[in-house]
């Protein structure tokens, strides 16, 4: 099919304008993060004249980011690993029909995507759990991690679909050789599920790392703040000191951006899979 040249040029022009809309804010943040506060006040958008690397050191120590970063890592890694394991434990028997009413269980789990907002009584539940247990529930790391661990979401559905494509003969063969259920699941099935597990890990990890409302509701103590909440508090403290805040933004965003550039391909596939399946 013939393409009109003017249309192609117009397309590039539109895309170019949009790219500016998406990239310019990031460049601005980097630029401001290197300015001293007086220079920023004098000239907020011009190119930086004297580069102040010390801003980053200040932001890192003042913002207590080391601590928040470790917390975020703990939440993301533990809850993601748990989510993957729990989803496999749910998805495998349902996909294979090794439990009774597996069709019904699948629908019941699917319902999780359409339920009324559980926030109100979830909050009450977390409070009363903490009331009775010292280490679990409201304002505990463990409570937040367990709340974020789910074996019934999009990841579960992705897994069910994928497991159905793995041959059942493999189960029989492993059973004949006397393999137990657990061993089969972890040593045979999970290695075969690598691509879909990669997708699941990315979807879950981004969701937890970027969770904004959850920590505000369930992690009010400073020792438990993840990095998103830390950044919010940092903004509260430094109001309009944009050079320092820009350093904070960069410190929080940089690890994600680096990771994103590596896993971009999987991420795009994963996002699609998640959206189309749900």
């Amino acid at each position: 099919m013939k393409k009109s040249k003017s249309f192609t040029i117009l397309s590039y022009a539109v895309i170019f304008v949009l790219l500016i809309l998406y990239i310019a804010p990031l460049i601005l943040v980097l630029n401001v993060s290197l300015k001293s506060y007086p220079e920023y006040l004098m000239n907020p958008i011009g190119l930086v004249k004297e580069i102040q690397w010390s801003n980053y050191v200040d932001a890192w120590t003042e913002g207590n980011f080391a601590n928040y970063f470790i917390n975020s890592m703990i939440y993301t890694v533990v809850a993601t690993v748990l989510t993957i394991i729990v989803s496999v434990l749910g998805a495998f028997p349902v996909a294979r029909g090794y439990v009774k009413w597996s069709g019904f269980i699948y629908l019941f789990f699917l319902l999780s995507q359409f339920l009324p907002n559980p926030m109100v009584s979830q909050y009450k539940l977390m409070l009363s759990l903490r009331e009775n247990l010292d280490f679990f529930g409201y304002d505990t790391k463990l409570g937040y991690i367990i709340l974020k661990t789910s074996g019934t979401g999009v990841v579960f559905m992705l897994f069910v679909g994928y497991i159905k494509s793995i041959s059942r003969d493999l189960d029989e063969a492993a059973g004949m050789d006397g393999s137990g259920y657990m061993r089969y699941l972890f040593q045979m099935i999970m290695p075969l599920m690598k691509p879909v597990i990669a997708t699941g890990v990315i979807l879950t990890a981004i969701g937890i790392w970027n969770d904004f409302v959850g920590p505000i509701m369930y992690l009010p103590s400073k020792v438990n703040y993840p990095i998103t909440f830390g950044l919010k508090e940092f903004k509260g403290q430094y109001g309009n000191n944009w050079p320092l805040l820009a350093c904070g933004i960069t410190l929080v965003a940089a690890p994600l951006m680096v990771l994103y550039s590596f896993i971009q391909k999987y991420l795009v596939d994963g996002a699609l899979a998640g959206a189309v399946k749900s």
Partner: protein
Amino acid sequence: MYPFGKGMARYVPLLLLLIPFALYVVFYFGPSVLTVIYSFTDVKNIPGSPVKFVGLDNYYDVFFSGNSGERWRSITNTLIFMVVVTIVQNGAALFIAVLINQRLRGDNFYRAVFFMPVVLGVSVVSLIWGMMFDPLSGPVNMLYEWLFGYKDMFFASFTHAFGYIIFVQIWMYMGYSMLIFLSGLQSVPKDLYEAGYIDGTTKWQSFRHITFPLIASSFTVNMLLSIIGAMSTFDIILATTDGRFNTRTMAYDVYKETFRGSLEMGLPSALSVVQFLMILVFVVVAVKQMRKREVEY
């Protein structure tokens, strides 16, 4: 036939399945059902306080209690938010997906850039735009002054703050919708366009009569995601204005009343149920409309 042992060993899968089942029932399904029940009671956020049924009182209060003027504004805001986000986000996403799908050079790079805000997350995105929209030193205000000789208060403006929140929401999730449209577009067989070209269709006709019907299923997915997303997210409001300057929506109200309001939990529960019913109505209407347009090839 279950291949992993006999007797008690047959119950191992069931026992392990109980872990996700219990997590789901305790932390999501249970609270969800309880919220519906709470909406008919005067339950308070005090452990051990007596609970009694109050019928539809909470629902009455949602719409007609003391500060009901603000509630109606939240409801209007929610509807505006949903309609504008759904239309503009999907419109822009479809347009850009069609542009990128012509195999422009660097299309992977464009995809990655437009999807990036989702990766950055709400806390980073809201701060970036807080900086862009800073009334004193932000570049957008300088642009406004240079172009129109006019300055805005952005997130601190009673009349405009909500509009800017909608903009940031669309900026953040447009790339997501675009990806879904792109995957739909890539599944359209190329020979259909060639057949159309031989028959002398214009670009618009081939889009309207070939592309559009064939990507209708991506359209449905996108509509559902934006409707449900726009009706139930409030993190961007929390992160930018925290509900001030006339930017509250129903989802934000549920959060606010549960978490920082009174100890009454009946009212926010009733509000959650109303929100759920509204989502349900819009989703059903949207799905019915879209299903009509879907075709197979």
